[in-house]
């Protein structure tokens, strides 16, 4: 099951790390960076049902 409640100990730090990683990238670089990031994360999650649930949730 996809976690819907907070699962991060230091949410602001993690969020800012995400934003910082995108700083200074043009649109094409952002797309490439995000694609790599998503692939790394979905492999780490590994659970196909959770990934499919996240794909659905992201469409909203």
């Amino acid at each position, binding site marked *: 099951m996809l976690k819907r409640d907070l699962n991060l100990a230091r949410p602001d730090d993690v969020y800012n790390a995400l934003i910082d990683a995108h700083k200074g990238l043009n649109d094409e670089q952002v*797309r*490439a960076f*995000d*694609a*790599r990031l*998503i*692939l*790394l994360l979905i*492999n780490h999650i590994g659970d196909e049902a959770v990934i499919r649930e996240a794909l659905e949730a992201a469409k909203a």
Partner: protein
Amino acid sequence: MERVGEERLSSYAYKTYPYRRPAELDGKKKRRPVVIVGAGMAGPTLALSLALRGVPSVVLDDDDKVSFGSRSICQAKHSLEIWDRFGIAERMVEKGITWEQGEVYLRDQAIWRFNLQPEPGHKFPAFVNLQQYYVEEYLYERCAAETLIEMRHRNKVVGLSPRNDGVSVEVETLDGRYTLDTEWLVACDGVRSQVRHLMGLPFPGEVFHDQFLIADIRLKGDLPRERRFWFYPPFHPTNSVLLHRQADEILRVDFQLGRDADAEEEKKPENVDKRLRQMFGPDARWEHEWTSVYTFTCRMMEKFVHGRVVFAGDAAHVVSPFGARGGNAAVADVDNLAWKLALVLTGKASEALIDSYDFERRAASRENIQNSTRSTDFITPKFPASRAFRDAVLALAKDFPFARALINSGRLSVPTAQTESVLNTPDVDTDWKNGPAPGRAMVDAPLGNEWLVDRLGTGFSLLSFGAIEAPQVTAIDLGGSDLARQRYDARPGTAYLVRPDRYVAARWRKADPPSIQRALARAMGA
């Protein structure tokens, strides 16, 4: 594949297979059990498979030569095992290029090496690359030596009258027209099937717009045996390139050209030479064998069986070339069909058994088309996000093993699963850890000085671990082979019922004769 343009310069010596005046033109008529239309890879394979089971056939072909161009070059293990029954597979292995490994490059760096058959102990390798014209030549020669097969070159089907109990086929020759009466007609007449056309049947599917250039060249030197695939190589930086070696020191180079390429310009020898010069460097010398610019489609008929007319191979389904799923699927089709037709024609099974061909091979086609479409989407992404993820996979592949598994430069042909088939007897025992389940292909293993695939009969076989009484089947006791025990997850008493096309129909931990007989009847459509 739809050929957009072609240059023919092959060094292969094309023989002419002579036309002979058919007896029907002189009033000699007899009803045939099977007429096969088309003498590509599927038609003669079907004729030989039927002859092995005592069923005579007539093969009609509108041409008198083998395939022009190398076309389907990657002959898979499962096809070789089928051709081995006619004694021609070892000749193919000897003539062709055995390969089991592949390499994928991103720009100038190898990012992945894969091995399609990492374990020893199989009679045949994962793949042998051999030009289609050699495969057809060996098949034609073998057919000519078979009294049950009548090959009729330059005999063109021009009309069909299907009936409930057979088909009347109108055939055109140099000497005029005649009618051939047959119980079953099998259309193996390729992507532009005349039989499909005459019956007005649709061939729905997806059209791909990317163009590809095949350059078959003869190049002397130290040539790689393995399959190589490049994304964005320095010598063709905007697209992909696929390289295969074939017999006679011939290389197949397949350049992705994109959607907007001008096929007429691209196939000109001087333009092909420019691309090859960039790839092979200033000192390389080559001769052109065959050049073809193509696009492709993935299509599949809605039904493969239409009464007494059965469709097989490219006539029934076509895929993209990535994955070697065209010719190999055609051979698998007719291997599935031959034993069923033989049982029906000899009254041992009801006509309904042929419906299982439709079910099983359409499932296989769906699997082939799905694999082929996914490979194509990876190689030629259709929209920007698809390209971004593809490029991300390639970028991660060098450092992250998981990403290597996502690289899809073609998922290469293995026997497709038919686990949903009604002919299977589902497992009763639940403690199987591995071994081929019902609906999966059997696996080879060494047996002393020979191979398991050599011991299979033309009918059903029972592979047992310890002797088990089994009438009507070829009983093979594998108890003495450690590798077979492993591959079949066997204990004393374990047994597998294997169909004539090498698919597992049923398996047991402790087989008993009544269960074997029930599974056998079910696998024969009862």
